């Protein structure tokens, strides 16, 4: 048991997973991950090739080259750094390279801001990366370890983002139960790459695919993404046998008899659970569905889980300008559309640019949802916790 920040927990996991190459560019609030890793490297604790580069575009490009050569590779970024990686994110997934990217979620400029919201990785939701959002430092550590097994599985072969809330998790110290090195080593094993750059057996990776082939390659990628559900469950059940810990694609908290289910993820989910405890004491039938796996989105399971509720109150830290509602609520509404009896969905945009999300914000959204239920009509989305 150690006291670790979310960033430090991820750095420890990367160290134990025996990565071959790490290439990154510093950006708050992800910096500690790479900083810690550089310490391991300087102290001779890891054999990893650490490549300092001049930008995030180069960081992901270096990761792609290394991964294509068969290496186990990781990097980390956030906000503007992730935005600068954008073009190359699609190359990583399109070339089917299982690179692990730790993201300490941070708002995008402008105005410039270093604090947490989910605009950065939500913006990259169509990039072909698996996306897992963690609620605790322990979960960040565990998820990073599992992510290699999921990404490198031959049915999947896709890159993955392990996301933590910037500062709220990245810089907060929590108790983290670390596994012994040899347990992690034997759990993750050695990467068994499928098609690699090898001078003795030359192949071409990333050739031009035009009208006659591009669509088929994207079809392959889509199928691989669908395989994630099965592989995720397999890897997690194996992990659970070793550690006793598992998180699921989502976590249901007091949802069984709930009239209103609060749906969110990362740090607001912890706050929401505390709110639910307090509201339950007052006799309110309310629960939390804490999402973990956002890409691929477990629509079938979640729609079943939500179908019996009267309303689903979505809380999300992202504003999709001009959209009918925001990324998380869009997914939830789509997932529920095929249900014969659909709960009302309310969508609350909270905590942009690190604006605190106290329990009162969650309560406010809950109360509004109840009012909308009585009226039988709700707005497509609204912002909460902002001076209007």
């Amino acid at each position, binding site marked *: 048991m150690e006291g670790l920040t979310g960033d430090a927990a991820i750095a420890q996991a990367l160290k134990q997973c025996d990565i071959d190459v790490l290439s990154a560019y510093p950006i708050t609030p992800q910096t500690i991950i790479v900083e810690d890793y550089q310490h391991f490297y300087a102290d001779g604790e890891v054999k990893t090739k650490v490549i300092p580069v001049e930008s995030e575009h180069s960081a992901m490009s270096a990761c792609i080259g290394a991964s294509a050569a068969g290496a186990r590779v990781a990097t980390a970024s956030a906000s503007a750094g992730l935005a600068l990686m954008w073009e190359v994110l699609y190359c990583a997934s399109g070339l089917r390279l299982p690179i692990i990217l730790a993201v300490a979620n941070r708002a995008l400029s402008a105005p410039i801001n270093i604090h947490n919201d989910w605009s950065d990785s939500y913006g990259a939701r169509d990039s072909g990366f698996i996306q897992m959002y963690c609620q605790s430092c322990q979960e960040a550590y565990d998820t990073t370890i599992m992510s290699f097994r999921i990404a490198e599985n031959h049915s999947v072969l896709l890159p993955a983002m392990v996301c933590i809330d910037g500062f709220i998790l990245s810089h907060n110290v929590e108790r983290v139960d670390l596994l012994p090195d040899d347990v992690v080593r034997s759990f993750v094993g050695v990467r068994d790459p499928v*098609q690699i750059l090898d001078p003795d057996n030359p*192949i*071409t990776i*990333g050739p031009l*695919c035009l009208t006659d*082939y591009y669509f088929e*390659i994207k079809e*392959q990628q889509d*199928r691989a993404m669908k395989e994630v559900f099965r592989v995720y469950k397999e890897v997690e059940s194996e992990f659970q046998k070793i550690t006793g810990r598992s998180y699921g694609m989502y976590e249901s908290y007091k949802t069984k008899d709930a009239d209103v289910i609060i749906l969110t993820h990362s740090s607001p989910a912890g706050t929401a659970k505390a709110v639910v405890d307090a509201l339950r004491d007052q006799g309110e039938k309310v629960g939390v569905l804490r999402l973990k796996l956002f890409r691929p989105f477990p629509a079938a399971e979640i729609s079943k889980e939500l179908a019996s509720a009267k309303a689903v109150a979505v809380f999300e830290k992202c504003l999709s300008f001009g959209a009918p509602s925001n990324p998380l609520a869009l997914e939830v509404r789509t997932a529920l559309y095929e249900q014969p009896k659909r709960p009302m969905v309310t969508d609350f945009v909270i905590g942009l640019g690190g604006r605190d999300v106290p329990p009162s914000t969650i309560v406010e959204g809950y109360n509004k949802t109840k009012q909308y239920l009585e009226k039988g009509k709700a707005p497509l989305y609204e912002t909460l916790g902002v001076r209007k």
Partner: protein
Amino acid sequence: MSKKSSELPMGGNILEPGNAMQYKTGGWRAERPKHTPDNCLWVKNGTCLLCWIFCPDNAVKISEKDGKYLYEFDYDYCKGCGICANQCPNDCIEMEAE
């Protein structure tokens, strides 16, 4: 081109080296190079070969037979880029409209 997504290599990778031979790019050509041997140093004395060195598609075909230096273009692959004509120090190659 009839292969289904499940039949194609992952990510569109090309697993067989040198298979660009299977893709005849001569159809892209708008102008075709025409070789006049009179001042060609290769034909004269087996030297130069700037056109052969610079051709991006290995479409300049040279050979020796019975002490003679032979020269031709492989129009299956020549895209008509004109680099050979630009390189030739003796203006032996002219580009003609197809």
